[in-house]
């Protein structure tokens, strides 16, 4: 399957055709507007959402106190943090397996680098090219007591496995009744321990089939947990929690962050609770709710809005989009009275619709303005139109402004 270009390869293989360089004008396939103040490239080196020092990393409230005082940290990007989590799981629990297309050589995004040589090809291996096969196989292994981590190469390619996820993984616990939990030494007949990882979201040039963020197709399915980490530190803890979880987990990794997001990550293992949102920045006038990559967009929009409008914004990362942390969100709205929900996937029937409906049910009398949604438009991700389609800083900024000025 085609995959988006990787910058390191571009640098590695920078051959040129002489005739092409003689051309008087080279038009890059993508440019940023020259006078922009808001829609400028995200600065991952300074964003407050990443832990730029060991101290920041170790002071994270979700970490156990023992780890905070003893662990060292390493600067990792998101694929390295995923790799670290997988490596820990494989080395501490022999039930853990890792497989998918091209996993053995390290995966097309390098998440499984060196794991096959380290843990052996019985536990870390390539599968034939069949998503329904990969997920069905994983469900079977989980139902017989293993903890399989299955990789789907791109979230855009998960659909052949949809039947396995919706009709099998999600319903297995429910239908097996008293056998769902292992009891009296018997193996559970549910498929807890199953994690289906998939890179998701836009990268600027992925077009129809390398940009999708299909989380809301899974949030509609009771029985599945849907998680999307925002950073390396989060990815490590959430992935380890997903592998421990007694329910099947869809783990969506924002692929633009694999290399872009770098932060200090504790070397020791830790888990971050599922279905718990995190308040990334407290504020009093408006609550911005998001998850995954758009959190960085939100953070940039909030900085500009706070400066320009003299307001204070609260930023919440849902982290698990289903079943989600309704209390944290509702408590925040009850405080601020205003909400903006931001996600990359299209607005129609998206996670934002569920969050907005829950807010109007649970905090109606506290609302000072209608809940705003900033999301992808109701269309597919066309190659040339991505920057007009996915939420950008200007649109989030404008939504915050409209909400406070309502």
């Amino acid at each position, binding site marked *: 399957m085609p995959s988006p270009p990787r910058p390191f390869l571009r640098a590695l293989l920078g051959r040129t055709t002489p005739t092409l360089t003689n051309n008087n004008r080279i038009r890059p396939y993508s440019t940023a507007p020259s006078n922009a103040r808001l829609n400028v490239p995200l600065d991952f080196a300074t964003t407050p959402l990443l832990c730029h020092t060991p101290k920041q990393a170790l002071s994270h409230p979700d970490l156990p106190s023992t780890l905070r005082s003893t662990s060292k940290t390493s600067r990792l990007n998101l694929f390295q943090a995923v790799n670290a989590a997988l490596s820990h799981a494989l080395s501490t629990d022999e039930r853990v397996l890792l497989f998918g297309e091209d996993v053995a050589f390290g995966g097309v995004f390098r998440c499984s680098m060196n794991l096959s040589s380290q843990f052996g090809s019985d536990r870390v291996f390539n599968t034939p090219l069949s998503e329904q096969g990969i997920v069905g196989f994983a469900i079977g292994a989980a139902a017989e007591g293993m903890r399989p981590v299955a990789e789907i190469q791109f979230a855009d390619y998960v659909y052949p496995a949809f039947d396995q996820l919706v009709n099998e993984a999600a319903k297995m616990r429910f239908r097996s009744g008293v056998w769902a939990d292992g009891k009296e030494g018997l193996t559970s007949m549910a498929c807890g321990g199953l994690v289906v990882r998939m890179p998701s979201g836009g990268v600027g040039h992925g077009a129809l089939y390398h940009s999708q963020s299909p989380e809301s197709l899974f949030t509609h399915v009771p029985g599945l947990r849907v998680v999307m980490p925002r950073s390396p530190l989060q990815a490590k803890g959430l992935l380890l929690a997903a592998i421990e979880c007694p329910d099947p987990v869809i783990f969506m990794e924002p692929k633009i962050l694999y290399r872009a997001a770098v932060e200090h990550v504790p070397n020791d293992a830790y888990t971050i609770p599922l279905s718990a949102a995190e308040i990334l920045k407290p504020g009093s006038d408006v609550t911005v709710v998001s998850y995954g990559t758009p959190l960085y967009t939100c953070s940039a929009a909030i900085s500009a809005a706070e400066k320009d409008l003299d307001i204070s914004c609260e930023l919440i990362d849902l982290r698990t989009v289903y079943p989600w942390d309704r209390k944290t969100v509702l408590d925040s709205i009850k405080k601020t009275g205003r909400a903006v929900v931001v996600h990359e996937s299209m607005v129609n029937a998206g996670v934002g619709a569920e969050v907005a409906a829950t807010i109007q049910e649970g905090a109606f009398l506290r609302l000072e303005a209608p809940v705003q949604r900033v999301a992808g438009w109701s269309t597919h991700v066309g*190659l040339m139109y991505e920057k007009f389609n996915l939420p950008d800083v200007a649109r989030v900024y404008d939504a915050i402004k409209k909400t406070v000025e309502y």
Partner: protein
Amino acid sequence: MSLRDVVRRATPRGLRPRKPTSPCTAQRFSPQWQRWSSISQRPGSDHVHFPGAVNSKFTTTLDYERPSEKPAMPTYRYMDQDGAIVDKNREPIDISDEEAIKMYKDMLTVSIMDLIMFDAQRQGRLSFYMVSAGEEGIAVGSAAALNPSDVIFAQYRETGVFQQRGFSLDEFMSQLFANCKDYGQGRNMPVHYGSRKHNIHTISSPLATQIPHAAGAAYALKLQAAQNPNEEPRIVACYFGEGAASEGDFHAALNIAATRNCPVVFICRNNGYAISTPTLEQYRGDGIASRGVGYGIETIRVDGNDIFAVHEVTKEARRRALDGGGKPILIEAMSYRVSHHSTSDDSFAYRAKVEVEDWKRRDNPITRLRKHLESKGAWNEDKEKEARSSIRKDVLAAFNRAEKEKRPALRNMMEGVYAELTEEQEAQIRQLRDIIERYPDEYDVSEFEGGLDGLGVK
């Protein structure tokens, strides 16, 4: 060995054609296969009469079929690696030097365009590219054996099919640069070509999804031919790789094509790799060809570096696909993916460079045909130089024209999802226009045809 001998006769012998009931259409349309008139067991029979396997003999020997002990299906070829005809006694293939040179130039064009566009991607001028190196012969040779009206479904490494069908350099470049002349209106990743004018459906990235489409489309063509006796019978050709053949869609497609007698030729490019995954980790049977037999489909394996052999088996496959009311045919064309999977891939992370160099040096569809033509005196070094330089010039001219064009109008972001924009989409376009107007410095719409007005709302 003749082509006819190599084709596996996969139709179970126990299946008998039923006499046509309606003489006017059935003759042309479909010999109906009847499995069994009654499922009762005849006394003393030495055959299984269960409905699922009608011609199986009883045995008292407990034995399993061991695929590993069966010989691999042979690979059909016409020329050897030096371009010499292998079977000196056979009739020469029915392709004139002129036609062969056209095929050669088509392969050369793909190969030259590939080098230029690969570099252009490295310069950041387009976001992505996929080359066909090593597989040009399969695409060009097979497409040349089809009728232009035959419908094609391709995967993404069949640039040669488009080239053979007359998709112009300007058409290639407009798609690659996603400009306003791109048929896909700037929506698709590079190399996802498509053209109704050339009867090739638009490439989609998900693997194997096009294979069942091919079966359904072939059924449509078959019905249309039966409904309209003046219409020339057409087939569908469907391309995919050996990796894609692991998807459920492949199996579903072959099975339904067989049961509905669809005139479709499935052409598998077995190039040895699915990104990093070698065939040993992709399947354990005798390639993809053995699966065709399992579905009751006539199947052949061919040397994909031998463009004449590919042409010949495709031509014969087309004839068979239309024979007796229609049936599917499977061709497995063997090759080696000389290129990286795509511009996103560095294949030396999982295979030795020397392996690739070996293949490049040892065998390649372009040099094989060149040697053949040179040995006949139909080609020489001067012609080679001239052809390369003129193709290169043409490619670069089209490149420069395409790169200068505007992007398609912005409304193409929303149009085309439904036949008509929905009320919701129209409201969203107004919202987008409103944002761009209020934050003009944050957006650059100048590259798009019509700028902001290209959104189509005031």
